[in-house]
């Protein structure tokens, strides 16, 4: 599909999301540098300096402050953007809950990077997986184009009155963030008609002075407000499908909603993966298909809301499935595997193998995928670390 479209730029994932923010006409940006996110904020600073973007950019002194600043500006009704990675994202954690709890549709780019110690700047998803309970929507991108497009779709989804929750859009460190790919930069006019200006109904207003986030007793509205966040995340599924479809009709690039199915028709075995792991996975699936194996791949785009129904439906006719996590939940299994097992419980008896692969940026190779497919075909159900060196 993309082959027939005309690329008009070659850029890294970080440049692509900076252009995404620009095209989304964000009014306020606040951020703090961290490898490998830094080139996003540098690019935006350059755009501001050259008046290529009319946003106001504040370089704060920490990520906690970056999120607090965009929280406040969004509450005033200005579309706001930030970007971070790894330790910066963890440093924001308190403000992530606060921003979601205040129902502010901030959009943030996250470059997935490992956590120390020891320091490691390469890709891993534990940083954003640690934030899955914050009430933010999460989308994991596979290409620079998708990273750009997810900013545009992201604001539209997050700002929908049926959602009103923040969204973080992920790209893998270096594999996307620092790798140049052909990208189609959409027309500003087209983006403007797709994404109207923010109109936040409860923004700070002197004529109607309110308290934003004061406090609630156990019998106050607290529990209802929390349930409403859950309901909105559920509703966001419909909004995501609608917006993705509308995006496809407007721009000619079709993303398939919460999950993407690759060669899943008549498949007997499949692997579930997200981010750029899915790209290697697709290559291996094509290769195995040529060898006559009936295999497929499901790419998890949205992790929040989790596509439990979509995955349950996609695997109904399979004989086995494997789930790859590029992150860990110590003392348990990979976050995606846990979600998948929970999604299938009572609906499907197929064996689920859980793989942890590529931590700290370790390459996940074609042969690793082949091995994982072998495990799946053998009907294995345990938790496996892939490509771990023997203790030396």
């Amino acid at each position, binding site marked *: 599909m993309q082959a027939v479209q005309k690329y008009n730029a070659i850029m890294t994932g970080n440049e692509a999301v900076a252009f995404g923010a620009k095209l989304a006409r964000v009014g306020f940006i606040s951020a703090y540098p961290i490898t490998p996110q830094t080139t996003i904020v540098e690019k935006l600073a350059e755009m501001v300096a050259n008046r290529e973007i009319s946003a106001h950019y504040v370089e*704060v002194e920490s990520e906690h402050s970056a999120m607090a600043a965009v929280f406040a500006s969004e509450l005033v009704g200005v579309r706001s953007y930030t970007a971070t990675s790894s330790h910066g994202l963890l440093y924001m954690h308190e403000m992530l809950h606060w921003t979601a709890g205040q129902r502010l549709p901030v959009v943030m780019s996250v470059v997935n990077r490992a956590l120390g110690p020891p320091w490691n700047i390469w890709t891993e998803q534990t940083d954003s997986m640690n934030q899955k309970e914050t009430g933010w929507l999460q989308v994991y991108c596979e290409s620079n184009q998708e990273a750009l497009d997810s900013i545009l779709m992201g604001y539209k989804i997050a700002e929908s009155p049926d959602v009103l929750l923040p969204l973080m859009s992920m790209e893998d460190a270096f594999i996307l963030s620092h790798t140049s790919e052909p990208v189609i930069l959409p027309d500003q006019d087209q983006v403007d008609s797709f994404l109207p200006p923010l109109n936040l109904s409860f923004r700070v207003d002197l004529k109607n002075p309110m308290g934003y986030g004061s406090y609630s007793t156990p019998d106050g509205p607290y529990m209802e407000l929390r349930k409403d966040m859950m309901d909105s995340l559920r509703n966001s599924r419909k909004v995501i499908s609608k917006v993705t479809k509308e995006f496809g009709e407007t721009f000619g690039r079709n993303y398939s909603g919460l999950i993407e199915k690759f060669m899943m028709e008549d498949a007997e075995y499949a692997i579930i993966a997200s981010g750029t792991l899915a790209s290697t996975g697709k290559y291996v699936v094509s290769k195995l298909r040529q060898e006559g194996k009936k295999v497929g791949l499901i790419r998890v785009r949205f992790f929040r809301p989790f596509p439990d129904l979509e995955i349950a439906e996609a695997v109904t006719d399979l004989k086995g499935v494997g789930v790859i996590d590029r992150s860990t939940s110590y003392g348990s299994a990979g976050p995606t595997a846990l979600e998948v097992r929970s999604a299938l419980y009572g609906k499907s008896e197929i064996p689920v193998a859980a793989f942890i692969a590529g931590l700290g940026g370790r390459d996940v190779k074609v042969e690793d995928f082949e091995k994982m497919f072998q495990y799946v075909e053998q009907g294995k159900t345990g938790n496996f670390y892939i490509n771990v060196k023997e203790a030396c």
Partner: protein
Amino acid sequence: MPLSIPKEEFMEPGHTACHGCGATLSMRYVLKGMGPNTVVSVPAACWAVIPGAIPNRTLDVPMVYTPFAATGAAITGLREAFNILGKEDYNVVGFAGDGGTADIGLQSLSGAMERGHNVFYIMYDNEAYMNTGVQRSGSTPYGAETTTTPVGKDRNFKRQRKKVVADLMMAQGVPYVATATIAYPEDLIRKITNAKNVKGPKFIQILSPCPVGWYYPSEKSVEISRLAVQSGVFPLFECIHGQLKVTRQSKPIRLSEYLSAQGRFSHMEEEDVRNVQEYIDERMNFLLELEQKSGK
């Protein structure tokens, strides 16, 4: 003499503060000085609770609540967003306790001041974490007993001197820095008015006595506030663009009068009081020297 305190109220009756709460008076006076075009941001602190539970409110201006460490950054975002919308005339006011200012919020405060946003940061200084039950903060003075500096057998009262954030702000070159307290509401409101005429960040530290944490009868807050100034414990000053003016004491009192009025100092022995007096003298000399230098 005409009344110099504006009649207009921006604080409604019915709030949930303790009797005699100094921080409540501080807010009332600050808003009288600010006027109606004001948005207040408060972090975790007594002032996050004083306005009452949802759906109640106490102020007639919008209040944005944030996590404990976020005040400096929150007023940054509010200020810039209002500017983007052409509302440069709004007063954006951070209103945080001493813990939220001297300790956990110092980084975001310092960042906001350094960046130079046109904001007010009011530190209401009740010299401990009061909302959580009187724990020591960096702004708790030498000698005070708190629940985390209990005197006990080891006489473990706070042994370190007060971290005076207003002094830090002067050192950082913040264009408007002042101290004030509720015993002198006209002075306090005049300082707000002066601050409004300064473009850029403004920092005012308001001593706000707390009967619950300082252990004195709740009707004495204003009196204690006055004694703090007269004894030299809390000097009043104003520093505009580096020009410092220290208020001279017309009726100085003995330090012991201030200390003995509060239970938190009741364990203090002569030597401890001498330590406090030494601190007072040192700090006053420091301020006067600074005043002299800044006058040149």
